[in-house]
């Protein structure tokens, strides 16, 4: 399903044996523009702790209950190495976490997000190994969007495909409020992310922007097909067994 990140902030995180906390932030790999981790806020207000959860641990997302289900136990999460999420995450910290949970490393050949584009990405990550490559969603979502030196607007949200957690598009809020305020820019238009200037560089010409469709959160972009069964009274029913003869 294609969905925006901002809305997922605050979802409850439900482990196999109960709730463990809330979604506080996300970490995005800016070399591939993929979502890598969920930052979970756990514990009570007395002992608040932030832990990183790999998307490999993610089970079902239940939008109607605003809940993420994860394939972990509460104990596993509470025993995790603490992470200071205000700082960029280093590869060493990731290794410690992977050892704790037994997660596959996504930067190794048997990792869970290996794709065709991976060898190239691996070369890149090797070069920047030990470097900071994960960005906080909350951090980026206040950045300005620029094309060259021209400011177009600011980052408002990101659209991800939860099948592989790759970035589909970037939702930009325009500065001018005569034109439609929100516009989606395809992920391919992103050229650079500048940490120090707090800007996101895109390859879009300002005059092209009015041609883009305004972005609407309530657009029905996801389609799911299913077969539902009903009984003689129009009530939802169990699917009939294959061997059962239909009398009606």
């Amino acid at each position, binding site marked *: *399903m*294609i*969905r*925006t990140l901002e*809305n997922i902030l605050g979802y409850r995180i439900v482990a196999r044996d109960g709730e463990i906390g809330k979604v506080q932030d996300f970490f995005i790999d800016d070399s591939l523009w993929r979502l890598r981790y969920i930052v979970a806020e756990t514990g009570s207000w007395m002992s608040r702790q932030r832990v990183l959860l790999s998307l490999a641990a993610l089970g079902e*997302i239940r*939008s*109607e209950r605003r809940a993420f289900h994860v394939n972990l136990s509460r104990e596993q999460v509470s025993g995790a190495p603490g992470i200071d999420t205000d700082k960029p995450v280093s590869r060493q910290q990731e290794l410690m976490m992977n050892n704790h949970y037994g997660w596959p490393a996504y930067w190794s050949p048997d990792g869970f997000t290996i794709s065709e584009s991976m060898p190239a990405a691996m070369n890149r990550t090797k070069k920047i190994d030990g470097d900071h490559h994960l960005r906080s969603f909350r951090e980026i979502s206040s950045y300005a969007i620029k094309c060259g030196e021209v400011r177009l607007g600011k980052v408002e949200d990101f*659209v991800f495909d939860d099948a592989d957690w790759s970035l589909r598009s970037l939702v930009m809020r325009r500065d001018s409020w005569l034109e439609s305020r929100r516009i989606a820019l395809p992920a391919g238009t992103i050229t650079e992310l500048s940490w120090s200037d707090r800007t996101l560089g895109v390859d879009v010409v300002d005059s092209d922007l009015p041609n883009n469709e305004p972005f609407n*959160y*309530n*657009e*029905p*972009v*996801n*389609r*799911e*097909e*299913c*077969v*539902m*069964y*009903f*009984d*003689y*009274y*129009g*009530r939802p*029913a*169990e*699917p*009939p067994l*294959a061997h*059962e*003869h*239909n*009398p*009606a």
Partner: protein
Amino acid sequence: MIRSMENLIGYRIAATNGDLGTVEDFYFTDDIWRLRYIVLAVGGWLSRRYVLLALDVIDGIADEKRQLVVKITQEAVFASPDIDSDKPVSRQKEILLAEHFGWKPYWILDPISGMILTSERIEIDAVLPGMNSNLRSFREVTSYAAKGSGLDCSVLDMITDDASGQILSFVLARGRGPHHSAELLPVSEVERIDWTNRLLHLKHGAAKALQPFDPVAGINARRTARFFDYLGNLHHTSVLDDERAK
């Protein structure tokens, strides 16, 4: 969708601009076993009257709200004299009344036009010229007994396909009292309906055609597409097609 007619009794009828009333009864023809009209009760208990709606006006059935959605306006129903009748009197009820009081039947049909020749108390008949000889009330039939082929049952319900209005089977109660079992019998096994004796005459092999009736069986398969927005919220659901479950 294949459904129980008994269950539809009491559904609210939603016109395009508001509520119309409740489903009171159905009229069907027993020659080709088709549902023809919905009998709808409108107004309060003091000013209650009945209206017939042809099946084509049905737009959809919302079971979760027990609602029948129709493609007509409230005004069309309340104002239209054509489909309005103060009191529907089904022919079989009239037979009973006539027998009880020793009346001479008035519903002699003109053999050529099929029109009714007398004009007393025939509000419904006037609405349905030529067709009324086959029109039967569902509520009436569900109080009948069913006999033949060694069976002695009573009619509980009827099963129809709401896409075509075709009536598929009767639900019969076999045995009496709390120990009865509900069974399905295809309409093809009914020889005829005997309106004077309030009886279904069953064909010879009817007993063999009986099937147990399982009210919670998932007999309807509905392919649906659900659409979600960027926030994961359900935007709308659309029915792709309805078919009978295999």
